[in-house]
């Protein structure tokens, strides 16, 4: 099993959700987060004083998938989240040792 973690633009979350549902993903977790990458921060102005905001709001999406499905889900997220402009985010994949459904105790692929 793989854990796919994607940091994306907040405006793209709905599109990604729809695409992942269409691709048959059984569940996903999203959280609001902040950070910077190559996009760096942005500047805000209050009464003429410029403030550099280093951490930009993003949404972190986490999806657990079977190894066999990983590549197509990754492609789905990357394609949907892409706008071509700086700040589209990043995606990384980590191997997952075990998954357990808490209610039933099912393990591994059955728990997804």
């Amino acid at each position, binding site marked *: 099993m793989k854990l796919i973690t994607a940091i994306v633009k907040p405006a793209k979350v709905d599109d990604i959700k729809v695409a992942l549902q269409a691709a048959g993903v059984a569940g996903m977790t999203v959280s609001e987060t902040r950070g910077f990458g190559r996009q760096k921060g942005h500047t805000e102005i209050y009464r003429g004083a*410029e403030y550099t905001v280093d951490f930009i709001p993003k949404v972190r999406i986490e999806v657990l998938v079977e190894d066999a499905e990983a590549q197509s889900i990754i492609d789905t997220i990357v394609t949907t989240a892409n706008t071509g402009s700086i700040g589209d985010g990043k995606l990384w994949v980590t191997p997952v040792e075990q998954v357990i459904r808490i209610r039933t105790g099912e393990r591994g692929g059955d728990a997804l």
Partner: protein
Amino acid sequence: MQAINSGDTAWVLASAALVLFMTPGLAIFYGGMVRAKSALNMMMMSFAAMGVTTIIWVLYGYSLAFGKSQGGFIGNLDHIGLSSTLDQVTGAEGHQIPVLAFAMFQLTFAIITVALLSGAIADRAKYGSWVIFVGVWITLVYLPVAHWAFAAQNGEGGWIIDKLKALDFAGGTVVEINSGAAALALALVLGKRDGFKRDPMRPHNMPLVLLGAGMLWFGWFGFNAGSALSAGSLAATAMINTQIATAAAAMTWVAYEKKRDGKATTLGVASGAVAGAVAITPACGYLNPMGALALGLIAGVVSAWAVTRKYKFGYDDSLDVVGVHGVGGILGMIAIGLLATVTANEAGADGLFFSGGTTQLNRQLIAIVAVAAFSFIATWLIATVIQKTIGFRVYRDDELTGLDTTFHAESAYDITGNSNRY
């Protein structure tokens, strides 16, 4: 009880409530502008001003401000505990209102004036010291200045209104220049916030700031039109002038921003509205509508420029009491000397642009300098004494943690609804 004019009385009573409403409005305006960790403390300072000032007003405040003048400098103690006021009336023949309506109306001015000062020392004042400061400042600074400029007693009252004959309809000196000069003194005594000019200290809740500005705009009609102390044409003049200048300054502040910074901001439109209302405060009963428009258009640009001076000179007037209230009040007082016309108010004067010469302008300038100098020096002394004795500035650790938990054991926001479980 002598005969009172019920229409006038109703308007002054309603105006008193409108002006009181401005102080919670100020609390919200200021509260949104500070960082979340000290938002409650910022608002608490305004509410403390409502409490402390009211107690003082009853005990001796009204008496010292509006009692029989002692040489034009301060009232006497005839009305301690609001004695000899219950069955008394005040006002011109045919427009008499209960003294207590007037006392209530004036109390709300004292409250918001001292509350305004809190903006200069955001995020770094000891709460207990602030409460003491409010009492001392009202006593030693506000009451004398209110007497000078507001206590008209047939030529025998306060020296600014009765002897100098400078015109100040609703508090350009007493409220605006007084608070601006005192704010500068406070900011200097307490020093800069940790991280001033280094860390981002952006407003934590702009919708609150806009709500507060709206409450101030609304309440200002009581402040200015109520100062006519009658429900007549003068109140109408003051009200429309207030609307004109406030709206005009809101637009020119953001226009100036757009040209300078490239963007028109919501903080700019809120600040511009307040700057316009401030500027028209002394002048609203003496200008015609076109005069009010000219003053508002200018006030928005000048105040938008003035609030950036603190970065150049290095004083941390955190929420720009000096740039908005001090500068706006001065503009309004000068505008009377230039744009006043007796066609707007026959008890007023003609300014320089209405063939009145420089007589009135000179009176206005003397009043500006006198109030600014007295307020700055007296406030600086009061704040310094408090700082040297019980301390005024918070400890650095408390400042970094935020004043809400330090002084009030509360926090402004619990977004999750269950954060107490973690």
